[in-house]
C-alpha cells in the first residue's frame, strides 16, 4: 500500500517536472519573440519618428512630445513600468511570488518603444527582461501554477528575453542566476538554460546569427599591457560610481517633487534630451552603432571622451525623469567610449607593444557593466558572446574585477537594489536564507506603537507619560516612518536647549530597521545598534512599520521559546 502511494507520488512528481520543462521551452520561445519584436518595433518607430535625415526642430520636438504622452501613460495606465524593469522583476521574484500584473509587459512594451525610439538615452535589454518575465508570470498565472513554481518561471522568462535581446544565451543564464535570483548555484540553472537556448534558437531563425558587434580579434600584445587594463578597470570603477551616484541622486531629486508633477517629469527629460541630441546626436537611443565604431577604432579620442560624458548625463536625465528604458546599453556605451579613450592614450604613449584602442573599448564595456550592474560573471560571458572572441578574456577579467571591487567598496548597494530602496522596497539579501532560520523578526516583534508626528517638539514628546517606558520613540509622518530617536538623544536635546525644536531635527537618515523575514542573528545585531527599539518594516513599503523589537521583548521571547 505504502509502496503504491510512493510510486504514484513519484510519477506525479516526474509529470510535474516534465510539465515545467515544456513550460520553460514555451516561455523561452515567447520571451525570445517578445524581445525580437521589441527590438524591431524600436527600430521601426525610430525611423517613423525621425525619418532619414531629421531637422533640428524634429530632433527637439519628438522626444519632448512623445515623453509628454508616455508620461501620461506611465502615471495613468501603466504605473510600475518606469525605468529599467530589472529591479521590478527582482522584486516580483523575491517579494511577490513571481506575480507580475498582465498590464506590466504590455505597458513596458508600448512605453519602452516610445521612449527609446524617441531618442531617450536608454537600453532595450532591461525592458525586454521585464517583458519576458511578465509573459512568464502571465503563463504561470493562467496555468494556476503554485507560488513556488511561479517564482521559478519568472527568471526563466527573464533569461529567455535577455538571451534574445543580446544574442547571448550563456550570459542570459548567468544574469538570471546572478542578478534576478541572486544565487549562481540556484537549482533553476537547468530551466534557464533550456529557456535561453529556445529563445536564441527562435531569435537566430528570425534575425540570423550575427553578433551584436563586429569586432576584430584582439590579443594581449605584451604582459605589461595587463597594467594598462588594470588602469582601465580602476577608471571603469570610478565611472561606474559617478554614473550610479548621479543616477540615484538625480532620481531622488525628481522623486522629492510633488506627486502631481510625476506625469510631466518624463517630458522634462524629453526637453533636455531633445536639446542634447541636437548638439550630440550620437547619444540618442541605444547607440550601438557608435559602440561598434569605438570597438573598431573608428572614433578619435576627443569624440570618445565627449560621448562618454554626454552619455552619462543623457542617461541620468532620461532615467531619473521616469522614462521607460534600461541601463544595460548605456553602461556598455559609456564603457566602450571610456575604454577607447584610455586605449588611445595607452596605444600612443606606452613603451611596450599594445593592442588597438578597440580592444580597450571592448574591455571597457565589460568593466562598466561589472561596475554598474554588479554582475561580473555575466559581464565576462556577455562580452565574450557579443564579440565571439576568446583572446581578450584575461584582460577583461582583470578590469572587471577591479571595477567591480571599487564600485562595491564605495557604493555597497548595487544600482538595482539602490533604485528599489528609493522606491521603498528592500529586497532580501544573503542574510535572509529562505526557510532556514529557527525564528524570524516577525515571531519576536511586538505590535508597533503609534508614530510620533515629526512636528511634535522635543518637550512635547518628553511630556507624554505613555512614552516614558520606551527606550526610543518612532517618528513619522502619517503612516510613514521617518526614523527613531532614543531617550538619550531627547535628554541631550533638552540639555542643549533645543527642547522647543521639532523632533524631526533629531531624526537621522536611514534608520536601523529589520524586515519580518530577518533571522535571529540579524535581529539581535540590529536591536543592539538601534538604541533599544528596532522598527520592523515591510519589504515592499520600507516606511511602513509592521512591529517593533525591543531588548526586553526579545529577552522575553527567547526565554519563552526555551533554549
Amino acid at each position, binding site marked *: 500500500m505504502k509502496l503504491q502511494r510512493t510510486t504514484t507520488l513519484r510519477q506525479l512528481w516526474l509529470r510535474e517536472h516534465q510539465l515545467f520543462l515544456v513550460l520553460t521551452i*514555451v516561455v523561452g520561445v515567447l520571451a525570445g519573440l517578445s524581445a525580437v*519584436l521589441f527590438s524591431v*518595433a524600436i527600430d521601426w518607430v525610430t*525611423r517613423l519618428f525621425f525619418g*532619414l535625415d531629421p531637422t533640428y526642430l524634429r530632433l527637439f520636438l519628438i522626444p519632448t512630445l512623445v515623453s509628454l504622452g508616455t508620461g501620461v501613460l506611465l502615471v495613468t495606465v501603466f504605473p510600475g513600468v518606469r525605468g529599467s524593469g530589472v529591479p521590478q522583476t527582482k522584486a516580483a521574484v523575491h517579494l511577490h511570488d513571481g506575480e507580475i500584473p498582465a498590464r506590466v509587459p504590455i505597458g513596458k512594451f508600448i512605453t519602452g518603444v516610445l521612449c527609446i525610439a524617441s531618442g531617450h538615452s536608454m537600453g532595450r535589454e532591461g525592458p525586454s527582461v521585464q517583458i519576458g518575465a511578465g509573459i512568464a508570470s502571465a503563463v504561470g498565472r493562467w496555468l494556476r501554477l503554485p507560488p513556488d513554481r511561479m517564482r521559478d518561471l519568472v527568471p526563466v522568462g527573464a533569461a529567455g528575453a535577455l538571451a534574445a535581446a543580446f544574442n547571448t544565451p550563456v550570459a542570459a543564464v548567468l544574469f538570471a542566476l546572478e542578478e534576478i535570483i541572486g544565487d549562481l548555484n540556484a537549482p533553476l540553472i537547468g530551466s534557464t538554460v533550456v529557456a535561453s537556448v529556445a529563445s536564441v534558437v527562435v531569435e537566430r*531563425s*528570425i534575425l540570423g546569427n*550575427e553578433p551584436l558587434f563586429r569586432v576584430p580579434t584582439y590579443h594581449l600584445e605584451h604582459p605589461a599591457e595587463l597594467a594598462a587594463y588594470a588602469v582601465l578597470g580602476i577608471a571603469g570603477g570610478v565611472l561606474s560610481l559617478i554614473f550610479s551616484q548621479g543616477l540615484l541622486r538625480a532620481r531622488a531629486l525628481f522623486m522629492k517633487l510633488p506627486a502631481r508633477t510625476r506625469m510631466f517629469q518624463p517630458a522634462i527629460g524629453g526637453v533636455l534630451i531633445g536639446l542634447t541630441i541636437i548638439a550630440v546626436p550620437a547619444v540618442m537611443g541605444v547607440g550601438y*552603432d557608435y559602440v561598434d565604431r569605438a570597438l573598431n577604432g573608428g572614433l578619435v579620442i576627443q569624440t570618445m571622451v565627449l560621448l562618454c560624458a554626454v552619455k552619462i548625463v543623457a542617461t541620468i536625465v532620461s532615467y531619473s525623469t521616469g522614462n521607460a528604458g534600461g541601463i544595460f546599453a548605456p553602461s556598455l556605451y559609456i564603457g566602450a567610449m571610456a575604454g577607447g579613450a584610455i586605449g588611445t592614450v595607452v596605444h600612443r604613449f606606452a613603451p611596450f607593444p599594445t593592442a588597438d584602442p578597440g580592444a580597450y573599448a571592448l574591455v571597457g564595456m565589460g568593466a562598466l557593466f561589472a561596475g554598474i550592474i554588479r554582475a561580473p560573471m555575466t559581464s565576462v560571458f556577455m562580452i565574450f558572446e557579443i564579440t565571439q572572441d576568446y583572446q581578450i578574456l584575461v584582460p577583461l577579467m582583470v578590469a572587471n574585477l577591479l571595477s567591480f571591487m571599487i564600485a562595491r567598496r564605495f557604493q555597497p548597494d548595487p544600482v538595482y537594489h539602490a533604485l528599489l530602496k528609493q522606491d521603498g522596497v528592500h529586497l532580501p539579501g544573503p542574510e535572509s536564507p529562505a526557510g532556514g532560520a529557527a525564528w524570524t523578526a516577525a515571531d519576536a516583534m511586538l505590535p508597533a506603537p503609534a508614530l510620533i508626528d515629526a512636528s511634535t517638539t522635543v518637550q512635547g514628546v518628553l511630556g507624554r507619560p505613555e512614552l516614558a517606558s520606551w527606550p526610543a520613540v518612532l517618528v513619522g509622518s502619517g503612516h510613514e516612518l521617518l526614523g527613531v530617536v532614543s531617550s538619550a538623544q531627547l535628554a541631550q536635546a533638552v540639555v542643549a536647549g533645543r527642547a522647543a525644536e521639532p523632533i524631526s531635527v533629531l531624526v537621522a537618515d536611514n534608520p536601523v530597521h529589520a524586515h519580518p523575514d530577518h533571522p535571529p542573528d540579524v535581529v539581535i545585531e540590529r536591536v543592539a545598534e538601534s538604541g533599544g527599539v528596532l522598527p520592523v518594516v515591510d519589504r515592499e513599503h520600507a516606511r511602513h512599520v509592521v512591529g517593533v523589537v525591543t531588548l526586553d521583548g526579545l529577552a522575553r521571547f527567547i526565554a519563552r521559546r526555551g533554549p
Partner: protein
Amino acid sequence: MEAAQELKVVTRELRAIVLLTGVAVAAFFLTQTVARANHQRRQADAGMWYERGHRFLVAGDAGQAVPALRRAVALNPDGLRYRLDLAAGLIGTGAYGEARRLLLDVRQASPQDVGVNLALARLEAAHGDSATAAGYYQVALNQMWRPQDVGTRYQVRSELAHFLLSRGQRSRSLSEVILLAADAPDRPEARADVGRLFLDAGDPARALASFDEAGAATPSDPAIRLAAGQAAFALGDYQRAHRYLRGATALSVATDLDAVVELVLSTDPLVPRLSSVERERRLRAGLQRARQRLADCPTVADGATLRDDLDRFESAIASRARNAPPIGDLLDDGVELAGRVEAAAGSCTPPGALDRALVLIAKRHEAR
C-alpha cells in the same frame, strides 16, 4: 474517483500546453513577418544612404561620403559594396586604421573576395607594408576569375606590376609582367603598356617584341615608336633604335635619345664597313673628347691615372709608322679607355649627348 480527478487535471494541462504552443507558433510567424518587413525597410534605407554616399565618393568628397556610407553599413552590415565604399571613403579621409580594420573584418567573412583583397592591397601599398600589399594582390589574382572578368584581372596584375616596380622589385615584377602579357587584350595600347612594363622590369627584348606587336597595328603612333626605340636602345641595337627614334622624331616627339643614338652610330669606330682612316678618325675624336672632359673635371677620381693612360695611348698611336697597317687591336683599348674616362667624369658634370654615346659605345663592345 482520484484517478478521474487526476485525468481531469492532466487533460486541462495538456490542453493548455497545446494552446500555448499554438500561441507560440502564431507569435513566431507574426514576429518573423514583422522582422522581415523591417529588414526590407532597412535594406531600402541602406540603399538610399549608399547611393548618397557613393555619389559623394565618386565626386571625390570623401568627407561627405563617409557619414552616409556609415549609415548604409549600419543598416545593412552585410552589404559588401557598402563596406568597400566605406573603406574607400575612410581611406579618402585619412582614417587608414579604421579602413584597414573594416576591410580585414570583411575579409574574415569573405577571405577570397577579389574586391576586398584588392582594397586591402591598395591600402597597404599606399600606407603600409609592401610585402603585405603584394600578398593581398596575389590573393586577389589567384582567385577563380570568370571569363568576362579577365580584363579586370589584367588591370589588377598591371597594378601589381607597377607597384612592384615602384618598390624596386624588378625581378618579381618581371614574372608578373610575363603573366600579364598572356592576359593582355589584343589592342595596341595594351601591348604598348605591357612593353613599357617589360622595359621597366629589365627585359628589353620582350619589351621590343610587345612594341613591335603594338606598332604593327598603329605604325604611325609616335609614342609606341619612341618606346620601341628605347627598348632597342636598351638592347644595344642602335641601328634599330635609330630607325624607331627617327620615326618618332619625324612624328614630332621630341627626344634626346635620338641624338645619342645618332652619335653612337656615327662615332663608333668599331662598326663594320668603315675604312681604316675613318676608324682612326673616330677613335681620335673620341679620345679628344675624353681628354676635354678630364680637363673640365680636374677633381675627378683617378684623374691623373686616366690622363697618363690617355697620354700613353696617344703616344702609341703616334709612334706607329706612317702608312702602317690599320690600328686593329688598339681600337678596342681606345674605345674602352674613352668609355672609362667618360664614366668617371660623369660624376663631375652632366654628360652631353656625345659623352653618353661614348659610354654606350664602350659598353656595347665590352662584352665582345
